[in-house]
């Protein structure tokens, strides 16, 4: 058996794949955070809870209603997105004119409430969610074994990320969104309904989190704390990429997943902290983030 850089290739590629999977979740989640922050100027601390809600809605769909994974992949983001629209209309809108810190506190409080409700009803041990039949098994690529579902997660999140990027950067609706992000007052004075755009953007960002939650359900157990564990790392990713940059969020998400995977191979002790070390260095060298525009 040959070795690569002193490591068996199965271990190397296996960890790189795991890194890519984690990176997929970092990318979708930090993308949603970046979109929301750009237009609402709110750091959405509820994001992790909304990711968890996506996984739970998929689980409920299957166990209470018999709705399968594929339908849940569409329905759960819509359902959780609607709860996001309600949160924006009835809560976030009311504090839009005060300091952003209040938005952070409010969304953090909401996250605790939502997690508490789910823990109360479902416990914290986690619920199993089966991989859909079409995506079971895997392929031996020679240098490593690729489980089909894991490959699907990477492809699906890439597609969603790039579609979101295309919509924001290349379409008419996206130009409204960018204009409202840059200068909401003037954009409104052209006759564009900015408040509606804000509501829909929050709903969309939340739906992205829920989509990631459905993707995650068969990999990690469906658990009220699954978002809280992940979201801290995602915030570090957003800080590294730069708040508000769409492509920055995507690229940083995937790359940091890979970096984390590589660290697990070469220096496992640091794998849990490497992202935070990078964050500290980026903050020292380029405080606006790798892709951020200096204010």
């Amino acid at each position, binding site marked *: 058996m040959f070795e690569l850089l002193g490591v068996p290739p199965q271990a190397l590629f296996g960890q790189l794949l795991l890194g890519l999977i984690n990176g997929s979740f970092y990318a979708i989640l930090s993308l949603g955070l970046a979109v929301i922050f750009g237009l609402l100027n709110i750091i959405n601390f509820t994001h992790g809870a909304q990711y968890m809600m996506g996984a739970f809605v998929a689980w409920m769909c299957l166990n209470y209603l018999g709705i399968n994974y594929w339908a849940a992949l569409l329905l759960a983001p819509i359902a959780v997105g609607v709860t996001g629209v309600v949160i924006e209309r009835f809560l976030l809108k009311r504090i839009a004119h005060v300091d952003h810190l209040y938005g952070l506190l409010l969304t953090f409080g909401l996250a605790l409430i939502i997690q508490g409700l789910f823990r109360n009803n479902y416990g914290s041990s986690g619920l199993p969610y089966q991989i859909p039949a079409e995506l079971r098994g895997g392929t031996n690529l020679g240098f490593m074994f690729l489980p089909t579902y894991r490959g699907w997660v990477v492809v699906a999140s890439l597609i969603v990320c790039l579609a979101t990027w295309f919509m924001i950067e290349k379409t008419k609706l996206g*130009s*409204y969104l960018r204009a409202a992000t840059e200068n909401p*007052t003037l*954009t409104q004075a052209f*006759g564009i309904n*900015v408040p509606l755009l804000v509501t829909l953007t929050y709903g969309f960002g939340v739906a992205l989190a829920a989509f990631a939650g459905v993707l995650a359900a068969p990999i990690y157990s469906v658990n009220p704390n699954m978002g809280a564990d992940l979201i801290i790392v995602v915030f570090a990713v957003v800080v590294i990429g730069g708040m508000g940059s769409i492509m920055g969020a995507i690229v940083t998400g995937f790359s940091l997943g890979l970096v984390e995977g590589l660290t697990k191979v070469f220096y496992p002790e640091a794998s849990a902290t490497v992202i935070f070390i990078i964050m500290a260095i980026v903050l020292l060298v380029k405080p606006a983030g790798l892709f951020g525009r200096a204010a």
Partner: protein
Amino acid sequence: MVTEAVRERPAVTGGKPLLAVRGLEAWYGESHVLHGIDLDVGEGEVVTLLGRNGAGKTTTLKSIMGVIGKRKGSVTFAGQETIGLPSRAIARLGIGYVPEERGIYSTLSVEENLMLPPQVKPGGLPVEQIFTLFPNLKERLKSQGTKLSGGEQQMLAIGRILRTGANLLLLDEPTEGLAPVIIDQIGATIRMLKQKGFTIVLVEQNFRFAQTVADRHYVVEQGKVVDMIQNAELDANIDKLHSYLGV
């Protein structure tokens, strides 16, 4: 009172004014900036607001457009009261706005900037005609909006509201900081727009420029309209104007 003298004059030639402003007051936070602006603009007229820095000219335009924190009084456009409406609804009635800082978006290309404002009425200029007016824009459609020169940005800011069908244009110092040759081009554009039937309210520091395009001039001082001068009488009133403007 001078304001009453203003009202007595036949401000508008024939019929009801397209834009009628009565007792307009406005605030930036706690500070009271407009103290009762009265003015009328007839359909097809070009009217300027003259006055010193800080007199309230820009604030008057912002208040008509509804992009200011708090405003009171009455602003009717084409017979409809707009004082309680959000700015997006005011824009939809047919008012186009070019802010003092031009408001070109850096995250949008020139083309996206141009196509951003939605159509609010039929009768806007076709894009081809805007390119005939401002050929520079056509050559730089894919550039980032803020990579244009100051003059080109001004042309873009004016061009994008000509598309929408708005028939009242609010232009805030379109000549500020521009080279004389560009100022001439903008003057020619304003005269052409008047010929096409656009109604224009123009804020200007430079009354020599205002004289070449306008029908009438309102003088704003400390948040009020203190005088109205017909363009034909501008030269006869030059001493008075100098004392108003402090030049």
